């Protein structure tokens, strides 16, 4: 689970690939009028009750950084699937901007938009959405054929990526002959075969059973280590979000409640809604040493062992054998980063309340 190669810490400023600016989406017969009401501060429920418009997205601002996995999390109805469909304009916004490499996607005409979808953004769907009348290989090479490339290139690219996601040997079968997990592997191969920089994954693993889901998360992380795609991943599952996210965006009722580095959100939830989410999970498995260690340049000579900053707390507890007296030196590539004592670790395992949170921060 711990990456061996030095990974870029999420706090480093990577280039912004896609920027969502002041994005609004209102469903209903007259969204523009409703938009002025929303800008004047009307809430979702009032808008629905009195004006019969549904507020889908409310002033969304998110930076999606190149080569990172940005996870957008929220419960059903929070607008996360609506949001991801604005990136490739499967849904048109009511107001706002979507900037891809600084270019506003919303000004694109039909031809530009098709090129965007064919070459720059590929998508993986919750219900797989494979073409049932085409073989697995034809499905995987679909994006190439759409672009007008010949069948040989499509088959070669499709076959290459099917191989990569572990599906060699089923090329001639039809999607309905495969299990759910295998179908989604085809879905991922199809998205990868288009060679786009950006991959949109709409609840890609939600329809799979837990064991397969965990496999698929592993597959995605492993692919990402080599490919460094810009991935936007939608999920309603916090464990999944924390496992995959470099940048976590939490949506509720169409607006962003909190976004940032997942460890930070876990330690300092800004909202009771997020606390309720965060309270349910196994913190030891998710929190990493780097998030709670004490940074100090001169490490005291007496410590019980050396630990990597990317180790989870669970691993550290196992290492200590449950001894709360231990204190560990955190090192990366032989350089001292700081120390972590077990008593501090135990305190971090207690879900934070907003009041204590501020105290702890000081």
């Amino acid at each position, binding site marked *: 689970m711990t990456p061996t190669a030095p990974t870029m810490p999420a706090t480093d400023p990577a280039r912004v690939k896609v920027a969502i600016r002041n994005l609004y989406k209102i469903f209903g017969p007259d969204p523009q009028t409703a938009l002025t009401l929303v800008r004047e501060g009307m809430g979702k429920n009032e808008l629905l009750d009195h004006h019969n418009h549904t507020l889908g997205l409310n002033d969304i601002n998110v930076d999606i950084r190149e080569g990172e996995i940005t996870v957008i999390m929220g419960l059903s109805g929070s607008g996360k699937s609506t949001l991801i469909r604005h990136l*490739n304009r*499967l849904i048109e916004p009511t107001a706002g901007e979507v900037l891809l490499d600084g270019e506003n996607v919303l000004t694109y005409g039909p031809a530009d*938009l*098709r*090129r*965007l*979808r*064919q*070459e720059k*953004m*590929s*998508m993986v*769907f919750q*219900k*797989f*959405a*494979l*073409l*049932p*009348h085409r073989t697995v290989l034809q499905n995987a090479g*679909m*994006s190439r054929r*759409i*672009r007008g490339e010949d069948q040989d290139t499509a088959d070669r690219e499709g076959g290459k990526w099917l191989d990569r996601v572990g599906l060699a040997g089923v090329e001639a079968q*039809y*999607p*309905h002959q495969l299990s*759910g997990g295998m*179908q989604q592997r085809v879905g991922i191969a*199809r998205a990868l075969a*288009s060679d786009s920089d950006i991959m*949109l994954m709409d609840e890609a693993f939600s329809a799979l059973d837990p064991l397969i889901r965990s496999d698929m998360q592993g597959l995605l992380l492993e692919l990402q280590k080599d490919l460094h795609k810009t991935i936007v991943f939608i999920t309603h599952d916090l464990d999944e979000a924390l496992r995959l996210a470099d940048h976590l965006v939490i949506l509720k009722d169409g607006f962003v409640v909190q976004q940032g580095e997942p460890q930070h959100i876990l330690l300092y939830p800004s909202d009771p809604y997020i606390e309720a989410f965060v309270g349910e999970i196994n913190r030891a498995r998710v929190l990493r040493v780097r998030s709670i260690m004490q940074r100090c340049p001169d490490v005291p000579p007496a410590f019980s062992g050396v630990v990597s900053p990317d180790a989870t707390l669970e691993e550290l507890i196992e290492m200590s054998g449950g001894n709360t007296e231990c204190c560990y030196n955190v090192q990366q590539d032989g350089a001292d980063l700081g120390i972590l004592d077990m008593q501090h670790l135990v305190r971090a395992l207690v879900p934070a309340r907003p009041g204590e949170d501020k105290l702890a921060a000081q």
Partner: protein
Amino acid sequence: MAFYDGVFDSLGLRSWCDAGANDGPMTMAQLLQKKSGVTPEVAATQSTPLMDTPFPSLDSLHEACNSIPRTRDMTEAVELSFLSIKDPLKAVLDPITQPLSWALDGTMNLFEATPWFIMIPALLLLTWFAARSLGIVLLVAASFLFLGFIDHYTYAIQTLSIIFVCTMISVAIGVPIGIAMARNDTFQRINIPLLDMLQTLPTFVYLIPLIFLFSVTESKLYGIAIILYAVVPVIRLTDLGIRLVDRDVIEAADAFGMTDRQKLFGVQIPLALPNIMAGVNQTIMMSLAMVVIASLVSAPGLGVLVLRGIRNLELGVGLVSGFGIVLLAVLLDRCTKAALNRINVSTKAGS
């Protein structure tokens, strides 16, 4: 005095009514009254009891006011207006529909000219390609040998050739209309009442204007009647089939940047194919039903024998040819259903 005289008098319309007075042709009722010796004037003086109040129809209003037309004036007007547009309509429709006559006659000649020992194996081969089922091929073989044995082979082949041409044309017209309906809600809303009308109009009703438009000896007359009746299911099921294509798959097609044309031919039509084929099956069955009625307007085939059975009360002829039609229906249905199942297996939807 007629019952509604008072109404027109009190509205001050009497002069308008009388101005329109003209002695049109006498109605049957007037004739009977005259014969019984009761003049209208005498009849009118007897006051009508309340229970006998006539419905204020055109005829009873006409009795009180001559300016109001009678019902038969109305039907006459309909007839005259049809007759007045008949010639321009014929000038437009005749050349457009002429290829239909050629197709029907040409195919009929071809089917009849082909000797039975070539035609039957050809049909069996076609059945094999469509259905890929030995059982159905044997059924077709047995049926045609039987029909030949009882000297109904020529009639059956005539019926088959009409159905063949009419189904081809119905599919050629119906599938594009169905696709257009699936893509455009307004077009669908306009078309549905038309399709309902075509399906519910008694089949004899469209024969009436067609007889006026075209000569009864022309084969396109029954061709049009059959196609109008049989094209409906293929339109409806194409529309339905395309609308039923999984939204997720369509969304995926959009997300990967398919053009409308790629989406139509690469996704929508292939996935709607089982429904379209079900429509074709229905179209064949309906043209078979219509081909019997079309024998009234000189369509050849088994229907002619059925008609002879009715006209001359030749019970045996009617029953045997009726059985022949049932046999054809079973064959066509089995073949198309087997073809449909083959498609269903190869495009079965996921999970």
